[in-house]
C-alpha cells in the first residue's frame, strides 16, 4: 500500500494541496520531497530491495520497473531546477503560469506513474490521457501566442490520437473472441499468456490503431508535428520532462501490445510497421535539420530522431531490442541536460532563433560547455552512454534480417550530426556584430550542477554498466520472448 | 369481368376523384394554421371546373410539343395512378418490375412538361425547367433507395407485392418503415413542389420552380397540368399511407378509417411544414434532397445487414 501511496497517491494529494497553497517555496519543498521519495522507492524497487505490492489494475514487471526509474530520475532533476527557473522566467507574462506549475507537475507525476504501473489496458489509457491533460497547460506556461497555438495543437492532436488508441484497445477485445480470454478483463499479463490463441486479424488492426494513436504522443512521423511544436514552445524543464519521460510513457503502451504480438504469427507484420515508422521519423528529423533555425525545435526533432532509433531497435529485435532499452535510459538523461542548458541560453538571449545567439561560449561559458558536451553525448560520441547503446542497435541490425537498413540509418544519422553540429557551433562560436563590450560573467546555477551530475551519471552507467540494469534488460527481453 | 379488375378500376377512380379534395384539405389546414379562414375545401374542384370551360390559347411560336405535352402529362400520371395499390386491392396495372415503370412514367410526364416549357422560348420558363431538371436529378435516387430497399428486403419487384410484404410485427422493421416514410414524405414535398423546396403560392417568377413552367398555359391545358399536379400529390400520399397497410388488415371499414386519418395527418404535416418553414435557398435544396437520399441509403444498409 505504501508504494501505491508514494507513486500515485502522494503526488495527487500534493496536486490538490498546491492548488490551495499559494506559497511557492512550500509548494517547491513538498514537490521536491515527493519527487525524492518517488525516486528512492523506485530505485529500491528497481534494485530489488523492496517487493512492491500494488492494488488491482496496477502491477510491476521488469519493463515498468525500468521505465518507472527513468520517469522518477528525469522528474527529480527537473523538479530540482524548477524553482530557480521559476524565479527568473524568460517572459514577464509567465507570472500567471507559475501559480499552477507545481500542481500540474505533481499531477504529471501521478498520471505518469499510474500509466507506467498499470497492468490493465483501460487503466493505461485513462492515465495516458491524464498525462496529456497535465502537460498541456504546462506547455502554455509562457502565455504567448506561439505557446497557445502549440498547446492547442498538442491537446487536440494527442486527444484524437489517444482516442485512436482506445479503438485499438477495443479491437483487442474483439481479438479475444472465442478464446479463454473472452469476457475477461484486459490485463496485459493474461493477453501475453494467451497470445497464441488470439485472432490475428484483429490483433493486427489493434496494433496499427494503438501504434498510430500513441505515435502522436511518442513523436513518430508522420504524426510528430504536434509533439514537436509543444516541445519547442514549452519552458525548458517541461520540454525536458516531455522528451525524457512522457514519450517513454507513451512508448510503453506500444511495447505492451508488442509484447502480446511478439508471441504470435503477426510479429513480422508489427515489425514492419515499427521499422517503417521509425525510419520515417528519423527521415523527418534528417530533412528538418537542414532548414531549421530554432534551436529548441532542433532539440525537439532530435527527440523525434532518438525515439525513432528506439522504435527501430524494438522493431528489429534481438540485440537491437536490448540496445533500444539502453538507449531509452541514456536518451532520457541526455535530453534533460540538453533542454536545461538550452533553457539557459534562451533566458540569456531572449530568443529561440539560432541567428540571434552569437558567441555564446564567451558570454556564458559554463552553460555553453555543458551544452556542447550534451550535444556530443546525444550524437553518440564515446564515452557517453548513447554511443554504446547505438552500437548495440547497429550490431543487432547487422546480424538481423535487415542489415541493409543500417546503411540508410548511418547515412541519416551522419547528416543529422553534421547539421546539428553546424547549428550548435555557430551558436557557440560565431561572433555577433553588436556585442556588449564586457558581458557580465556567468554565475553558478543549480542547473549547471544538475547537468554535470547527469552527464557523470550518463558516463558512469555506460562505463561501469551496472549488473542490475543489465539483468533488468535481460529480464525484459525474456518477457518479450527475444533471444539475445 | 374479374373482381380484381373492378377493384382496380374503383381504386383508380377513387384516386382521380379524391385528389383535388386532398389538395383542398391541405390548403384549408394551412389557412387555419396561419389564422385565415381560407378557401373552401372544394375549391380545387371549382378551379378545375373554371379552367375546363376556358379557351386554350397557345403562344404563336409554340410547336406541336406545347399542344401535345399537357395531355401526355395527364395520361402518364393517370397510368402511374393505375399502378398504385390502394389498400389490398390489386391495381389495374401490376407486373413484376413495375416500380421502374412507375418511376419513369412520372419521369416521362416531367420530361414533356420541361420540353413544353422550353418550347415557347420564354426565359423564365427555361429557368424553371432548368431548376426542375436539377432537382429531379437529386429526387430520383430517393424513390429508388426507399422503395428499392423494401423491394430488396422483400424480394418483390412490383408495388403491389412490395406493399403487401410490409409487416409491422418486429420493432426494427417498424423503425425501418417509419424512416422509409420520412424519406417518401421528403420526396413528396419535392415532387409536388411544396414548401421547403418550392413555394406554390409565390408571386415572383424568379423564386418559382414548378409554377413558372406553366405560366404560358391556359384553359384546358392548364386544367390538365393542374389536375395532374393534384393527382401526383395524392399518389405520393397514398404511397405514404400504404406503409401503414398492416394496421387495416381486419376489414375495409378499419382500413378506410386509417386511410382517412393518415391522409389528414399528412395534410396537417404538409400544412405545418408550409407554415413553419420558409423556402430554402436554391443552393441548399440539393443538400436537402441528398439528405433524403442518405436516409434511403441508410435504410437499405441497415435493413440488409440486420437479416
Amino acid at each position: 500500500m505504501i508504494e501505491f501511496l508514494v507513486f500515485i497517491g502522494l503526488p495527487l494529494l500534493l496536486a490538490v494541496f498546491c492548488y490551495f497553497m499559494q506559497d511557492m517555496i512550500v509548494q517547491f519543498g513538498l514537490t521536491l520531497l515527493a519527487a525524492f521519495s518517488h525516486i528512492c522507492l523506485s530505485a529500491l524497487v528497481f534494485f530489488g530491495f523492496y517487493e512492491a505490492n500494488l492494488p488491482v489494475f496496477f502491477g510491476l514487471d521488469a519493463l515498468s520497473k525500468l521505465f518507472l526509474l527513468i520517469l522518477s530520475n528525469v522528474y527529480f532533476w527537473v523538479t530540482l531546477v524548477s524553482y530557480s527557473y521559476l524565479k527568473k522566467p524568460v517572459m514577464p507574462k509567465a507570472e500567471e503560469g507559475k501559480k499552477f506549475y507545481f500542481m500540474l507537475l505533481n499531477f504529471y507525476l501521478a498520471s505518469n506513474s499510474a500509466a507506467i504501473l498499470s497492468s490493465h489496458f483501460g487503466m493505461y489509457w485513462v492515465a495516458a490521457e491524464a498525462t496529456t491533460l497535465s502537460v498541456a497547460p504546462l506547455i502554455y506556461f509562457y502565455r504567448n501566442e506561439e505557446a497557445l497555438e502549440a498547446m492547442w495543437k498538442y491537446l487536440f492532436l494527442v486527444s484524437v490520437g489517444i482516442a485512436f488508441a482506445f479503438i485499438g484497445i477495443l479491437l483487442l477485445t474483439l481479438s479475444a473472441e472465442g478464446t479463454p480470454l473472452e469476457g475477461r478483463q484486459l490485463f496485459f499479463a493474461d493477453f501475453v499468456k494467451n497470445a497464441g490463441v488470439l485472432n490475428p486479424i484483429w490483433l493486427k488492426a489493434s496494433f496499427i490503431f494503438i501504434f498510430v494513436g500513441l505515435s502522436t504522443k511518442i513523436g513518430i512521423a508522420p504524426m510528430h508535428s504536434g509533439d514537436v511544436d509543444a516541445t519547442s514552445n514549452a519552458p525548458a524543464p517541461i520540454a525536458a520532462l516531455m522528451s525524457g519521460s512522457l514519450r517513454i510513457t507513451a512508448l510503453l503502451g506500444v511495447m505492451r501490445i508488442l509484447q502480446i504480438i511478439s508471441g504470435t504469427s503477426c510479429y513480422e507484420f508489427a515489425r514492419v510497421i515499427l521499422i517503417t515508422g521509425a525510419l520515417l521519423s528519423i527521415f523527418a528529423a534528417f530533412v528538418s535539420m537542414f532548414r531549421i533555425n530554432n534551436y529548441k525545435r532542433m532539440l525537439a526533432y532530435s527527440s523525434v530522431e532518438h525515439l525513432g532509433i528506439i522504435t527501430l531497435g524494438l522493431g528489429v529485435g534481438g540485440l537491437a531490442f536490448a540496445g533500444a532499452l539502453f538507449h531509452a535510459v541514456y536518451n532520457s538523461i541526455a535530453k534533460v541536460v540538453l533542454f536545461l542548458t538550452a533553457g539557459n541560453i534562451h533566458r540569456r538571449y531572449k530568443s529561440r532563433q539560432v541567428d540571434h545567439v552569437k558567441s555564446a561560449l564567451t558570454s556564458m561559458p559554463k552553460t555553453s560547455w555543458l551544452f556542447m558536451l550534451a550535444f556530443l553525448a546525444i550524437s553518440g560520441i564515446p564515452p557517453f552512454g548513447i554511443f554504446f547503446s547505438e552500437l548495440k542497435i547497429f550490431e543487432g541490425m547487422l546480424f538481423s534480417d535487415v542489415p541493409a537498413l543500417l546503411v540508410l540509418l548511418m547515412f541519416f544519422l551522419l547528416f543529422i550530426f553534421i547539421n546539428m553540429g553546424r547549428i550548435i557551433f555557430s551558436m557557440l562560436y560565431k561572433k555577433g556584430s553588436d556585442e556588449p563590450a564586457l558581458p557580465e560573467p556567468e554565475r553558478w546555477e543549480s542547473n549547471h550542477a544538475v547537468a554535470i551530475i547527469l552527464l557523470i551519471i550518463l558516463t558512469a552507467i555506460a562505463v561501469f554498466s551496472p549488473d542490475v540494469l543489465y539483468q533488468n534488460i535481460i529480464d525484459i527481453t525474456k518477457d518479450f520472448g527475444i533471444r539475445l | 369481368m374479374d373482381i380484381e379488375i373492378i377493384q382496380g378500376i374503383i381504386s383508380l377512380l377513387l384516386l382521380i376523384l379524391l385528389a383535388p379534395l386532398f389538395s383542398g384539405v391541405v390548403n384549408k389546414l394551412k389557412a387555419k394554421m396561419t389564422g385565415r379562414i381560407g378557401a373552401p375545401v372544394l375549391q380545387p374542384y371549382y378551379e378545375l371546373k373554371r379552367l375546363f370551360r376556358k379557351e386554350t390559347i397557345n403562344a404563336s411560336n409554340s410547336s406541336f410539343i406545347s399542344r401535345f405535352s399537357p395531355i401526355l402529362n395527364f395520361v402518364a400520371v393517370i397510368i402511374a395512378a393505375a399502378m398504385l395499390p390502394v389498400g389490398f386491392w390489386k391495381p389495374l396495372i401490376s407486373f413484376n418490375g413495375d416500380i421502374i415503370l412507375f418511376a419513369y412514367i412520372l419521369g416521362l410526364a416531367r420530361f414533356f412538361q420541361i420540353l413544353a416549357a422550353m418550347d415557347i422560348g420564354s426565359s423564365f420558363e427555361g429557368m424553371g425547367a432548368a431548376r426542375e431538371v436539377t432537382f429531379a436529378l437529386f429526387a430520383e435516387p430517393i424513390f429508388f433507395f426507399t422503395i428499392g430497399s423494401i423491394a430488396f428486403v422483400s424480394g418483390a419487384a412490383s408495388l403491389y407485392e412490395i406493399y403487401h410484404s410490409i409487416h409491422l410485427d418486429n420493432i426494427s422493421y417498424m423503425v425501418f418503415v417509419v424512416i422509409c416514410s420520412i424519406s417518401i414524405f421528403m420526396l413528396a414535398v419535392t415532387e409536388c413542389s411544396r414548401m421547403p423546396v418550392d413555394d406554390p403560392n409565390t408571386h415572383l417568377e424568379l423564386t418559382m420552380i414548378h409554377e413558372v413552367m406553366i405560366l404560358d398555359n391556359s384553359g384546358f391545358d392548364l386544367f390538365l397540368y393542374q389536375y395532374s399536379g393534384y393527382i401526383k400529390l395524392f399518389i405520393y400520399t397514398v404511397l405514404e399511407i400504404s406503409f401503414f397497410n398492416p394496421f387495416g388488415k381486419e376489414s375495409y371499414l378499419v382500413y378506410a378509417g386509417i386511410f382517412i386519418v393518415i391522409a389528414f395527418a399528412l395534410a396537417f404535416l404538409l400544412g405545418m411544414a408550409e407554415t413553419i418553414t420558409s423556402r430554402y435557398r436554391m443552393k441548399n435544396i440539393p443538400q436537402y434532397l441528398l439528405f433524403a437520399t442518405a436516409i434511403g441509403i441508410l435504410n437499405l444498409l441497415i435493413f440488409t445487414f440486420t437479416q
Partner: protein
Amino acid sequence: MENVLSILFCLSLFYVSLTLRVKGYIAVLRSQGIILAILLLYPFIYDFSVYGVIIPLTILIIKVFFIPRYINKIILDLDIKRQVEPTIQQMTFLPLVIASMILIFLATHIISLITKIDVIPFASGFSAIVVGIYIMIFRKKLIVHVVGFLIMENGIFLFGTAVASELPMMIELGVLLDVFVVVFLMGIALNKIRSSFEGIEVTQLGRLKD
C-alpha cells in the same frame, strides 16, 4: 432495440453533416448523448441494479447537460458566429459521408462473417468516428473541431458497446472524466485564443512552422 438506436445515431450523423448551424451541432451532441444513455439504460428495465445505473447516469449528466451547456457558454462568451464555415462544398461533403458509410457497412458485413459482432452498432460507431474526423478536417471553426472530437468519442462509445467489451466501472468513469476535462481545457484554450488572436479559426493557427 440496439439497432433502432443505432439507426437514430446514424440519422444524427447525416444531420450533422448537412446542417451549417453551430446550434444544430450542439443539438446533435445532446441527442447522441441521450441515445447512448438509453442504450446503456435499456437492459436495466428488466434487471434493475443501482450499481449498473451509475455509468448511464454519468453519461447523461456529462454528455447531455454539462458538455453542450459548456459549449453553448463558450459560443455566447466568445460571440462566435452561428454559421459553420466549411472548407469544402457541402455538396461534396455529404456524398463523401454517404460513400464512407456505405463502405463501412459493407466492410463490417464482410468482417461479421468471420467474427461475431453486431453489424449495425459497430458500423454506426465506426461511421461516427469517420464523420468526426471529417468534421475536424473540413471545418474552419475551432469550436466545431471540438464538437467533431466529441462526435468521434461518441462513436467510439457506441463501437465499444458493439464489441461487447465490459470495462470496469472505475475505468469507464475515468474515460468519461478525461473526455470532460479535455473539452474543459479546450474551452479555456479557446478563450485564450480568442483574446490573443483575431479570430477562432484554423487559418489563424499558422505561426509554428519549421
